[in-house]
């Protein structure tokens, strides 16, 4: 492997780690607070990408306006899911999973009806790029994703550790009943968690739209990846999700570059299987809730 290829692969892996971390952290947040596996998370990511398709590629609004709209729109979708599906099914975790599958099918169909099944082509918002000394390239489009991941995840971390809402959120994730006995509103925290979790997926989708050619079915591989990251990192561990997203992105990108994509997927799954066998709670997971 030449130095140029090596640096290029590191750059690619950093980009992949950034958007995977955004998605996985939202997924963990929703699982931690709501206790449901949100199968529709990949479709929230897809909805973010299609917001950019509609507002930026079709209507010609500025790119960042479209991204902000994607964040808000997908966040609202998250609120809708909480209100209509997860709240009535709070005592039925398997039910939440099934309901999210139903929601996924609805979102997919809306995308197909609105935009068709073929790939959308989103023109890049900028042609600028950074060229490293040995020839590796980082386009600004990818840099935006990396910057957004760092900024948003830091903001989330500060929010969770410093603000009152953040404390309530973490308390709910630890023990819902005890938290509600202390006077925290379960509905309120669930709403916040759903909004943030969904919005992070939406932002990831919106920012990567010019890079990946959105299709209505783009969410499926993404949710599988999120699954792997979250399990290896430990359910309910946000730090674990970020660290494993980085680890997974590097392993996956390097194996893809050196061998091929399918082998990279197999390696990722086997990694997850090994972690589950050796330490079922994940690398950074706490003990399972009783």
């Amino acid at each position, binding site marked *: 492997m030449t130095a140029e290829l090596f640096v290029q692969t590191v750059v690619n892996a950093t980009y992949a780690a950034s958007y995977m971390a955004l998605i996985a952290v939202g997924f963990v947040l929703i699982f931690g607070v709501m206790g449901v596996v949100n199968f529709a998370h990949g479709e929230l990511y897809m909805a973010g990408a299609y917001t950019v398709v509609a507002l930026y590629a079709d209507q010609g609004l500025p790119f960042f306006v479209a991204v902000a709209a994607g964040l808000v729109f997908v966040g609202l979708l998250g609120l809708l899911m909480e209100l209509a599906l997860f709240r009535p099914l709070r005592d039925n975790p398997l039910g939440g999973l*099934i309901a999210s599958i139903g929601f996924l099918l*609805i979102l997919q*169909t809306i995308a197909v009806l609105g935009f068709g099944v073929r790939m959308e082509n989103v023109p890049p918002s900028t042609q600028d790029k950074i060229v490293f000394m040995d020839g590796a390239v980082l386009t600004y489009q990818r840099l935006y994703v990396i910057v957004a991941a760092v900024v948003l995840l830091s903001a989330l971390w500060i929010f969770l550790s410093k603000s009152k809402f953040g404390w309530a959120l973490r308390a709910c994730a630890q023990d819902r009943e005890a938290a509600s006995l202390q006077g925290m509103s379960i509905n309120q925290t669930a709403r916040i968690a759903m909004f943030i979790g969904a919005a992070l997926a939406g932002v990831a989708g919106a920012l990567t739209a010019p890079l990946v050619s959105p299709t209505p079915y783009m969410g499926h591989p993404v949710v599988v990846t999120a699954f792997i990251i979250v399990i290896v990192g430990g359910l309910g561990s946000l730090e674990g999700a970020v660290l494993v997203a980085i680890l997974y992105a590097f392993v996956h990108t390097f194996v893809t570059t050196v061998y091929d994509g399918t082998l990279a997927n197999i390696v990722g799954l086997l990694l997850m299987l090994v972690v*589950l066998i050796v330490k079922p709670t994940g690398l950074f997971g706490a003990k399972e809730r009783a």
Partner: protein
Amino acid sequence: MPNRDTNTTTRVVWLLGSALLLIVLIALPHLLSFSQQEILVFLVINVLLVSSYRLLTLTGEWSLAHAVLMGVGAYTSGLIAKELGVPVPIAMIIGAATAGLLAFLLSFPLFRMKGFYFLIASFAAGEAIRLMWKWSDLTFLFGGPKGIKRIPPFPDFLSIDFYEPVNYYYLCLIVVAVSLLILYRVERSRIGLTFHAIHWQDKLAESVGVNTFRYRMLAFVISAFFAGLAGALYAHYVGAVAPNRFSVEEMVYILIWAIVGGTATFYGPIVGVVVLTILNEVILRALHVDEMRPMLYGGLLILSILFLPDGLESLVPKIKGWFAGRKEKRATEERRTMKEQPAE
């Protein structure tokens, strides 16, 4: 005396009901169009698939590897029939046995976990197997993403052409009926009771000497065997298998059938798959809303989980209770008249 009376009536009702069901099942394909006959064949195969899935859920574990295990049966049976020239009926059984063997091997790592972790780990194991079929380095064996084509069909027997959907439907019906009978007997046996015990009280079961690992493994192996058999039936009917046929989306369908039908009773998942298939293939297709179908399906799924959380099977006792209520009313009325008679 009246007790024995009701016993004979229920028996007669049961007998009449089964006879009616048998007649409907035999007559059904002749009332349908060609494409509907094909759907019927898949429906019968799916009944076996979802019923075998239920056997594992008896122990309280939900697997996401079932579709892949079906694929193992399909790939094995198709490959050995095509490449080695093994007769198709024998190849089918070998395919099913291979799926069972794989489940046996997988249960060593997988049953170190329970509940949600088992669900995810079974998903990872299944996906890894499925991606192996897709992998370009193994294309010479599994055919890569395009899979295996030109799998030999079921051979003619007594000059019955099993290439015809109607005849293949009857073949599947017999195979599936025998399999369901076995699954039912397993559930009603001591083994099945132990499965229930492991589900509801695994610590207690262990403390009275039940080897819970062994029983979980047994449930997994049996359910994998019949999933593999369903896969083999599928492979030799369609004549081709591809990795995407056994993806997570297919697994999600199995889950949906089981959950919408309900898993507390033997007939629950079967009701689920039959009702949802009729809904999806017949009613939604007749409405000419092809592109909207997934949306309507998703909406129905949400509605059923919100308003019928215990599955369609939970309607049966209600209907029964409704009938029994009427019968009881009549019975009390009769008793009242009988009591009143001597007084008159």
